Structures are given as C-alpha cells and as structure tokens.
C-alpha cells in the first residue's frame, strides 16, 4: 500500500511516447561510414560533411542511396583523391547493399553534396555531385551503371581551374523549356596556404581556438547552368541575373514556386550572410527578393548562419512555408507565408526555443506521423568539437529532433530516435521500406551513415498516398509540378522537387499523410507544362504513378 502511494505520482505522469523513429543503420547500411578531415576540425573544409541522394537509380521500384564522401587535408596536400561517392541498392525492404562495379564512381577531390534528376529525358536518374574542386555529372547508362560526363556536360571547362567549393545543387526547369537546368550553391574560397589553421590563427569562439571562417573569408558566387536536355549545360549565371548584390556563403538550396505563378523559384540558405530568394521572372532571369519577401533574416533583422532548408504548405494557404536550420545561439527560422511574402514565426510555432542551443543541418517538412499535417525533422551537430568545452551552452554531439505538429499551428519537440546525441549533417527522406511512411537517412560528419526507420503505429487514422509523376518531355520527373489532394474538407498540396535536407537529393514524388481519410476525393496535378489533370476518388495507401495526358 505504501509502495503504491509512493509510486502514485509517477503513475499519474503522462507516459513519454516512444520515439517515432528507430535507428537501423547497422542493419540497413552495414559498415558504411564517411570521412571529413581531422577529428579536431582544424579547417572549415572539414566540417560540413558529405551528401546523400535517394532515388531509384536501377529502376526496380525502390529507393537506392548515393553517399557522397569526403577526404582529408593531408590527402589534398599530397594531391591524392578523396573517398569516392558510392551507390547502395535497396532490396525493397529498406536494406542496402553496395552496387555492382558498373556503378562505381571515380573519386574526386573532396565530395560535398549532390542532386539527382533525369538530365537527358531518357527515363533514368542521373547524378550531379558537388565537390571542393568541381561539379561533376554522372550519367546513368540505362539503369545499368554510371558514366562520368562532366567534360561533355560542359562543367569541367567552366570551373576546373578555380577550385570552387560547391555545397548544395538544385535541378529544376527555370526557363520552362521542358529541360532540367542546374544551380550550384558555392560556399567560399578555401586554400590552406592563405587561411590560418586552428590554433595558429586568431580564430576564437566563446574564448576557444576554433577553425577559421566563414567570417573573414571570401564567399564564392553561386552558379546557374541552362540544360540542353541532352546532358549538356551552358553557364547562364550573369545572363540570368543570378548574381546577388552581396554574395553569401552558400550552403543550402531548395526549389519552390513560392509565389505560385507557375515558374520555379530558388531559395538559397547562406552561412552568416542573408539568405536569398531568387524570384523567377518568367523570362529566363531571376531577381533576388529575400529581403523584400521577409526570408533573408530572422524576425529581428539579424542574418543567421543557415544550413538546411525544408518546405511545405504547412498552413494550407496554397503557398509553401520555409523552415531553415541555423547555428547554435540562433533559433531555426520558420517563414510563414503572409501576403506576397513571409513572416518569421518560429517562436509562436514552438520551433525557436528548442533549437537555440543546437546547430541544425538537414531538415525536412513532411507528414511523418501520417495524421494529415506537416511535421519537421532536424539533424543536429556542432561544427566545433570545442563545443564540449566550458561555457559554450551547447555540445558537439546533439540529439536529432522531430517537431510534431499539433494540428493547430504549434509544434512539439521530441527526440527523433533513441540514439542519444550524434554529430549529423546531411539528410534525405523517402519511403525506404515501401510501407508508406517516410524514413530518413542522415550522414554523420564522419562515422556511420544513420538510417532512421519510421515506426509510426498504423491504424485507421494513418492513411497515406505517394504520387509519382511522369511528364511529357525531358523533365520526366515533373520537377516543379504541384499536386493537390482533397480528402473531405482538407486540402493538402505538395510540390515535386528533389532538393531538400542539406547537400542532398530526395525522391521526386509527393507524399500525403491523410489521417483518417479512406480516399482522396480529388487529386489535381498542375504539370510543369501548365496542363492540369484531375483524378477523382483515388484509393489510398499505395504508390500512384500518373502519366501526363496529352493536351486536350
């Protein structure tokens, strides 16, 4: 009796829910690790980690994984290559194995991020890899292997001599000619001969010696290339007006039609400099409107150190919200659509406070618990190993987060999985095991690649629908298309994009969590061509592939 009374307060407490995700990397992606310089991070080159691409490279119906790996400064100084990017093939149940040698990719200088898309409109998924060195193109040879076509693609000529530091890349059809174009986000000019090493240069953070940068270093312009639809590109950076007044230290990129005018815009997250929103003018040129639209700074008008970007129409007003991860001491930003622009509302949404002591990287806005509203995942980890020293208010390893939407505009902070703190960077999401919910793959700055399996409990209130589009023309994956699902009184909209996370590529598909809706009453596709296609009474809990109809 006494024991029962003593335990009563404990018993009356609401139980802590189990994390939604389980980390299964050891089984799903056994022994796969990456490299990114020294443990102590003496140089800024060593901190961002590599990239990930999720897509069906072998066309067998499931999502395969590309891991872009890094190098060390010592190897670079000896003119040795870094670790090669690697493809891992999915067995359909979410377990990956190294792809056969036909898929082998030659090592480059120091791999960073990647983008995936069908560059030639031949029905297979090609790959673009960013590096500290040059941007590379890997052509998919009829779903049977990669062949490097960087020189043929026209990228080697443009930047081979400049040692640009590409981070994120975006494939999209900015000029609406039906062919995929490419934007490469660049970080800064890095050279160990001119930048001081940690400890030898007066670069300090909270009183501790840390690696130098980005402040004090020189940013590099981002680049834009117009695709020819045959795997070749021509640089159009200046011609398209893709040159900001004040260059930023570019890290993240996300395509979206922010103003819903039918063309695709580009949002770029910059480190320690204002973020850019490149508004597509519909004539092959862009105008930078980040400040005017309220997405360049935080709510206080302070530039942030931004990394990853997620987007979705969280408030259901027909325009995507933007979620941006930032440095420790800053909150992550949540730009909510308002009028023609945005208003930063991370605090009232409950997304600010829990992020202040963390440093966020890969992020996704999606319906992870299939209850019909959008949630947020954030991969965290500091750039400074010295964050574990006295007085930093943060730590090097940090817990990955899931912010669960309460359906009323506020988010509740939960741990993503029972992993404890990790040092994560890039992330990509997709339904790895074909069970309809969205899983997440995340890269450690070095060490094992993590696979977070979504274990959302299934019941009558967790219906879902995945939609893949096959467009006419060379942009076969219909990047830029808008898909709207109306079920009962709820309308949910997704834009088809392959950008997302950080330095990563995600599958070109729309994913809808539908809650208790047993069917979708109306599914409307606005294709990049401008055509609209409507399906009625669509069955749920399946993958739906829609071919673009001929013009009527």
């Amino acid at each position, binding site marked *: 009796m006494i024991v029962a009374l003593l335990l009563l307060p404990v018993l009356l407490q609401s139980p802590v829910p189990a994390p939604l995700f389980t980390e299964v990397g050891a089984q799903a992606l056994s022994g796969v690790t990456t490299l990114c310089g020294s443990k102590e991070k003496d140089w800024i080159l060593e901190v961002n980690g590599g990239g990930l691409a999720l897509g069906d490279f072998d066309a067998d119906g499931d999502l395969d994984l590309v891991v872009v790996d890094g190098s060390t400064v010592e190897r670079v100084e000896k003119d040795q290559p870094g670790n090669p990017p690697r493809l891992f093939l999915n067995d359909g149940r979410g377990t990956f194995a190294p792809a056969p040698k036909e898929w082998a990719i030659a090592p480059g200088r120091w791999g960073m991020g990647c983008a995936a898309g069908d560059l030639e409109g031949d029905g297979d998924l090609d790959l673009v890899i960013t590096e500290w060195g040059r941007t590379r193109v890997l052509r998919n040879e009829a779903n049977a292997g990669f062949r490097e076509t960087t020189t043929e693609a026209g990228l080697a000529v443009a930047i081979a001599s400049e040692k640009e530091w590409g981070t994120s890349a975006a494939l999209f059809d900015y000029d609406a000619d039906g062919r995929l174009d490419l934007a490469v986000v660049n970080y800064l000019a890095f050279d160990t001969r001119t930048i001081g090493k940690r400890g030898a240069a007066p670069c300090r953070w*909270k009183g501790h010696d840390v690696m130098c940068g980005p402040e004090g270093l020189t940013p590099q312009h981002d680049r834009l290339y117009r695709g020819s639809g045959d795997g070749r590109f021509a640089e159009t950076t200046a011609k398209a007006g893709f040159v900001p007044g004040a260059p930023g230290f570019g890290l993240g990129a996300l395509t979206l039609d922010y103003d819903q005018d039918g063309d695709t815009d580009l949002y770029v997250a910059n480190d320690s400099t204002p973020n850019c929103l490149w508004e597509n003018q519909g004539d092959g040129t862009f105008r930078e409107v980040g400040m005017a639209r309220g997405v360049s700074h935080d709510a206080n008008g302070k530039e942030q150190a931004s990394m990853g970007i997620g987007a979705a129409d969280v408030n259901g007003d027909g325009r995507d919200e933007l979620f941006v991860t930032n440095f420790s001491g800053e909150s992550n930003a949540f730009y909510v659509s308002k009028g023609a622009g945005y208003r930063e509302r991370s605090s009232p949404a409950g997304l*600010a406070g829990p992020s202040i002591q963390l440093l966020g990287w890969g992020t996704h806005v999606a319906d992870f618990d299939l209850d019909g509203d959008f949630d947020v995942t954030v991969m965290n980890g500091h750039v400074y190993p010295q964050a574990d020293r006295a007085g930093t208010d943060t730590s090097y390893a940090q817990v990955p987060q899931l912010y669960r939407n309460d359906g009323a505009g506020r988010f509740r902070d939960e741990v993503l999985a029972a992993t404890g703190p990790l040092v994560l960077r890039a992330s990509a999401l997709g339904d790895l095991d074909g069970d309809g919910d969205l899983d997440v793959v995340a890269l450690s700055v070095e060490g094992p690649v993590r696979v977070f399996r979504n274990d959302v409990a299934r019941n009558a209130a967790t219906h879902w629908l995945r939609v893949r589009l096959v467009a006419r023309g060379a942009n076969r994956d219909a990047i830029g298309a808008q898909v709207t699902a109306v079920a009962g009184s709820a309308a949910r909209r997704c834009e088809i994009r392959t950008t997302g996370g950080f330095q990563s590529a995600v599958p070109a598909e729309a994913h809808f969590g539908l809650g208790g809706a047993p069917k979708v009453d109306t599914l409307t596709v606005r294709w990049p061509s401008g055509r609209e296609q409507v399906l009625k009474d669509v069955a749920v809990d399946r993958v739906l592939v829609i071919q673009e109809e001929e013009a009527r």
Partner: protein
Amino acid sequence: MSVGERRGRGGSSLGRAALLVACCAIALPRAVAAQSQPAPAATDRSAIQAAALARDPRRLPSAAKDRWRGFDPAKITKDDLPLALIEVAKALADGDLPLAIAALYAALEAQPDFPPALHQLGVLYFRLQRYGDSLVCFQRFLSVVPERVAETRGLAHALYSLGRFAEARAHYERVVAAAPADAEARRGLALARYREGDAAAALADLDAVLESEPEHADAWTWKAQVLLELDRAEEARVAAERARDLAPWSPRPWFVLSTAWTDLGKPKEAQAAGERFQRLAAVDQEIRRLEARLEYEPGDLGARRALVESLAAVGDRNSVRTHLARLMQERPGDVALRIFALDVLDGLGDVEAGALAARDLERVGAESAPAWKRLEAWYARLRDRTKQIEAGERWRRLSRP
C-alpha cells in the same frame, strides 16, 4: 538569441551590477588598507584569463545553510568582504572581464556564496554569452538570498537566451512583482510573452516600459515588431520611426520599418528602408563580432581599433568615444593612435570629443612632427587660426633634419 539589454555599445546596464557597486562603495574603503597586488604581467594575465574562462561555477564551494539569509550590502562588515573584490573592481574598470572572473572566483573561494560576487559573476557570464553559467550563478544567488528576487532579472535573461521562454516568462513575472519599476525586467517579460505567442500581453508590457522610459529605442523597436504581429501596420510604422529616430545607427528599426511599409502596400518606401537596413546591418554584423571578441580578449587593440572604425561608419558617436578612451588608456604614449582618434572624431564631426583628443595629442605628441601636422589640419578645420599657425610652426620645426 540573447535578450540583451540596452547598450551604449560599451556594456549593458545589467553589466553595471548595482549590487556589487553598492557593496564596494560601502565596504571596500574599509578593506583597502590591505594593498592590492600589482597588476599581473601580460603573459601572466593571459594565463589567468584562460584559466578563469575554463572554470565551472557549479564547482564553487558552498556556504553554510542560511549564511547569507537577510544579506544587506549596507550592513556588510570588513570581515565579510573578500579582498579579491578589489581586483574585481580594478578589472571591471579596465573592462577585462576574464580577469574580473578570475578575481570573483578567488572571492567566492575565500567567502563562499558571497551574494554580490555571485551576482556579479552571473552578470559577467551573461556578457560573455555564457548563458548556462550565468544561469547557475543567478540561481545560486537566489538560493542564498531568496528575498532578493528583485535583483535577479539576469536569471530570466539567461533562461530567455537559452530558449527556455516559459521559464523566463515565469521568472520575469516574479521579478516584476518584486520590482515593478524595473523597466528591463518588464521589457524581458514582454519579449518572453511575445516568444510564447502572446503578442497582446507583450504589447501591454512594452507600453508600460515606454511609459516609464519614453526614449527606450529598443522597446520602441519591439513594440513595432509586436504591432506587426498583430497586423497593426500603421502603428508599427510610427513606432519603428520613433525607434529609428532614437537610434539612427541601429539596423533593426529600419528592418521593422521596411516590413511595416510592405504591409502598408508601399513597396518603394519599403525598399528604401530595406536598403538603409542592409547598409547598417553589414557594419552591425562586424560590430557584434568585434564586441564579442573584445569581451573575451579586451587587450586586442587591433580588434578595438577596427571596432572604432565600424562604429564610426554607422555614426555611433557615444560608442566611438567609449572605445577610443579605452584605446588611449591601453596605450598612453602612442602618438599614432591619437592621430587615429582625431581622424575618427573629425570624420564624425564630433567637435567636442575632437577637442579633447587634440589636447591629448598635443601633450603626448609634443615632439612628434606628424602629430603637429595633424593638429594644424584640425585647427584649420575649426578656423582657429592662431592655433593653426602655432601647430604649423611646430610641425615645420620638428620636421627639420
């Protein structure tokens, strides 16, 4: 995301810790009989600073229970007062926060939980943006003198800066209840409520702050921001313009003003305000970086000189004066630095401070040709022909081989 406090770019009002100042004013003269140690040499000082920054306030010794209950600075005795507080006062006067922290640790080891020292340590950690350590100190302070909650707005500031908005709001409420006239606590309460999504309550708090301090530029800026959240754009514009007029060098009022103009459907005005914001923000970022660096490394003259140049670029006269004074104090015989000071003040059109700098340059650079050349130009600008001629003669005389 620090809650900060109103700063003249030289230190927050929180930094001028009332409790320690009061305590030292009352009791230190009685203790000064014991001479303080000479200032440590530069290398020793670096080591002391580094060691101080590595300390953890959680490991400080504790006093006996209720040792300080009912503590009153006015009734402090010589025996209570740790001698190390003299070093604290000296280090604070020099703006050397790490050295002050070292001395505070010594004080708290000699006299565990001495409330003014705990409070001051919390303040200094806050200025160093070590909010977790600041919180520890303020919590400890409150635990040893729970009746002095009115002096613990720093505790709420620390919670706020760590993103713990609900706890910050709750503590601000306690402080405001104990000290209704504490405008900074009321402002903090407004910010915490705003962060929690209660814009209407935040607005009422900011109005209360502005009633007692109508020239509080930061409160006007926040009021404008909260009004925007409430879709009251015209009122937001008026508040932002008031903030802008009070702090023309600050980028934030321009940012909020730009947003207000956007909401009012005036894109040209929004763009103009936005452009002004961007120009100021670019410099402000550098100012923040240098200020943060100097809190940790107050002796970095290059950083302080760069800070003066940035502050001058945005026209922040008061802060330029503060940091120039600090530079002169650090380098009492440096003629080139005094010429730099006069250049900066001249460029700002700050005749009053320029006159002082000119006199200092005359004294320190009495035998320096470049000093008198600069002074000749200064007096020419002031149309003080007599002094211009004198300076010119001195320059020519000193320039002769």
